[in-house]
């Protein structure tokens, strides 16, 4: 009995709360929650339209604490990451952030993520999926230390045209000079904030990171400064509209992470996700290199496309038919009506050789109205790029709205 009583009490919580939970819970009028990697996360707090337009017209704040975060440090950190990622991480200089993917041996994407070069030999990898096991196997032969710091780092995505002004009002001097994919440290209430000009909305926006302890002071300072700039907390539903509008893929929706894929041939390579610009064969060995070289010779099976679908019914889970409407040539992986671009966008995976820009296809859309299912065939045109890509996303110094 003695030995039992000296042990720390068993953690009986079914769901974890992020450090921002007290504020988000108070703001969450709908009390609409979902499970994001074990954390209670807001799906929506209010009308989704209010939240979406906060992203595009003001400033939206989204809690990204549940995002998986690994700290990677040591003399071989760069070499380790270069063997893990398909892109050349040596080009991501200190205080820069890089987007990238990593593959299994067969060249199939395990996940995508952002890599923060925090300091020389110190990096942070943010990803959708947990992958510590894979990172540890990949670390054999490298002098590198990997720590899961998901629970120790608090993060908020602060996105929207007035986001720069909010940080300026908060006293983050020089924030407007921060270039896209750059990061900078700011002193904050005896501690430190790290701000990076990154995000998942395709808009002007930032992500701000700090310790658990400073989470609530950060939230309060942000919302005090942001009030005149119409700052608003948002849930994942609004963010999802913004990311599809910006044409970003998401693990679990637009591709199945290779380590979770059971059926042969259902995973995707970087080429099949439109990410060939992230594959660098010249940089030396990396996991999946041989398979991707072979794919380059042999040809890919799928092509990732953004489609402009006629009408306003989102083509969720639709089959995509060829021009003659006879054969199925692919499926939609994400779809939404995009309010700013005024466009009915679908992200889809098509069988090769379909999907060249401008190709005319058909989306088979089912929808139900009061127990009646209706099927429409809607024209779908392959787009050249994302439908939403405003100049403010890249402008430096960041414009003040």
């Amino acid at each position: 009995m003695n030995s039992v009583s000296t042990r720390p009490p068993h953690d009986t919580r079914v769901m974890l709360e992020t450090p921002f939970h007290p504020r988000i819970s108070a703001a969450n009028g709908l009390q609409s929650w979902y499970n994001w990697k074990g954390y209670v996360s807001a799906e929506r707090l209010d009308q989704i339209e209010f939240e979406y337009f906060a992203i595009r017209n003001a400033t939206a704040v989204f809690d990204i604490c549940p995002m998986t975060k690994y700290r990677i440090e040591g003399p071989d950190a760069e070499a380790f990451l270069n063997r893990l990622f398909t892109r050349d991480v040596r080009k991501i200089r200190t205080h820069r952030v890089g987007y990238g993917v990593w593959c299994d041996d067969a060249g199939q994407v395990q996940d995508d993520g952002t890599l923060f070069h925090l300091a020389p030999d110190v990096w942070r990898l943010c990803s959708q999926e947990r992958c510590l096991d894979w990172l540890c196997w990949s670390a054999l032969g490298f002098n590198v230390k990997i720590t899961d710091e998901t629970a120790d780092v608090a993060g908020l995505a602060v996105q929207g045209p007035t986001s720069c002004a909010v940080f300026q009002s908060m006293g983050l001097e020089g924030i407007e000079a921060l270039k896209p994919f750059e990061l900078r440290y700011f002193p904050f209430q005896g501690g430190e904030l790290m701000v990076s000009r990154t995000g998942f909305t395709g808009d002007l926006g930032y992500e701000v990171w700090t310790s658990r302890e400073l989470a609530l002071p950060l939230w309060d300072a942000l919302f005090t400064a942001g009030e005149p700039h119409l700052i608003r907390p948002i849930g994942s539903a609004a963010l999802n509209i913004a990311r599809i509008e910006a044409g970003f893929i998401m693990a679990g929706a637009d591709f199945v992470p290779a380590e979770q894929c059971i059926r042969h041939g259902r995973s995707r390579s970087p080429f099949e996700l439109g990410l060939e610009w992230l594959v660098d064969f010249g940089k030396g060995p990396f996991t999946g290199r041989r398979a991707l070289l072979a794919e380059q010779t042999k040809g890919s099976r799928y092509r990732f496309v953004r489609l402009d679908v006629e009408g306003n019914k989102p083509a969720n889970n639709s089959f995509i038919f060829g021009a003659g409407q006879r054969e199925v040539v692919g499926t939609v992986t994400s779809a939404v009506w995009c309010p700013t671009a005024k466009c009915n966008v679908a992200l889809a995976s098509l069988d090769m050789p379909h999907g060249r820009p401008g190709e005319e296809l058909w989306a088979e859309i089912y929808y139900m109205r009061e127990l009646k299912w209706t099927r429409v065939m809607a024209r779908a045109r392959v787009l050249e790029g994302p439908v939403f890509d405003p100049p403010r996303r890249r402008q430096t110094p960041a414009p003040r709205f």
Partner: protein
Amino acid sequence: MTERHDVIVIGAGHNGLVCAATLAKAGRKVLVLERASHAGGAAHTRDFASGFSVSAGAHLLTHFPQDLITELQLQRHGLRFAATDLASVHLQTDGRHLVLDGPHASATDLSAEDAQAYAAFHADTASYAAILASAFGRRPPRLVDSDWHDRLGMLKLAWDIRSLGRDRMREVLRIGLMNIHDLATESFTDGRVRSAVAFDAILGTGMGPRAPNTVMSYLYRRTADAFGRRGPALPTGGMGAFAEALQACAVARGVDIRLQTEVKCLRIEDGRATGVVLKSGELLSAGTVVSNADPRSTLKDLVGYRELDAGVVRRVEGIRMRGMAAKLHLALDALPNIPGLDPARLGNRLVISASLEGIEEAMNASKYKQFSPEPVIEFCIPTLHDASLAPSTKHVLSAIVQYAPVDLAGGWTEAARAEFLARCMARFETVAPGIGALVSASELLLPPDLEREFGMSGGHWHHGEISVDQLLMMRPIVLHAQYAMPVEGLWLCGAGAHPGGGVMGLAGRNCAREILRGRPRA
């Protein structure tokens, strides 16, 4: 050394030599690099005490196929046998020893039913093992992205099994993954026969008789019959002389062999092996590099994990190669007295085993990183056939003793070695009372010693456990089981590749054939 070679073979073990000789015959210019001062690897005869020599690694030739001996003309190159087709004598403390000579089992008060059952068992298992042996002669088929050659291989395997007839096909499928304890128990009533069969299944492995798929490891051993060996053979001059014949064959075919030349690592350019870097710093180039080292040393040390896909690394780390078998060499002033044994049988393969439960208990200790309190032993006295190995009237006893885990808790200190040696000698005393007084010198080679002397990871002389998850298309690792390693231009020809360990030579020959077949598929 400005001379160009087509192929560099790292390691002059028997498989490396067979591979080199096979490639040379097809016209390839081959260079073999060997760390030690002799060729042959663990097939090596050396002194262990003044005037006493012994086969330091493998001590009996059990599996090397007769047709490979013919193909390599080893007899022309000096191979002589001091003895062939040795029987196995399973010694009992009460003197009621069991003799297994081919299909014939004999012992005091062995029932006619058991003798008959053994003959039938021997014939059945020989026919099942023949299917394995046939598969051993080919590259293992690939299940994913297979080509016509693979599909033919699968068809051949399926056809061989089907050709056994319906009942025996069912039987082989029934017993294939069973444990030898259950099969021996249902097949025989005599405890001696049961444990004799079980001993052959676990020798050289880390498994006990109750471990799943020990029937497979028994069949693995029984492939020897299909290779033309009714029982083990002793080359004149020990296993080192066998290696010398292989070496002579390779040299005669134009192979260059450089001894005392240790390779530091492979040279890899743009994902392709283009040569080797020696410890001395010298760089040797070749379009094809073949490693006779075990798969883990090859991929971890010679290639380096950084060059490989992380999934390959994960699988290489998963290869089970925990050495459990030690070698014990005794210099004897006279022949030991084994009560109840016909003196004419003393020159055979001798076994000091235990009941099925006793073997299992011997293994149990090893699970917890302890050595067996009562080790099980295979031994022979080669000087009875080959007097050249010891001073006249004196003898050499060579034994394999297990289980002696490579990773003994607390390490193999002097005290641990002395204790394990004492345990082994106590086992010898149970069947050969007074043998201890005859010993003038002894040498105990534990798995860490074997690792050091012969460069095998974990001291595992099969370069990886012989079990069904590490055989055929899973040896050494799945997707890279056709000798071509995940680095282009690098091949594996040792026991870690299909079909596996034992001085068999087929890994080397199959590997050479694959190299000659041309570029592997990606």
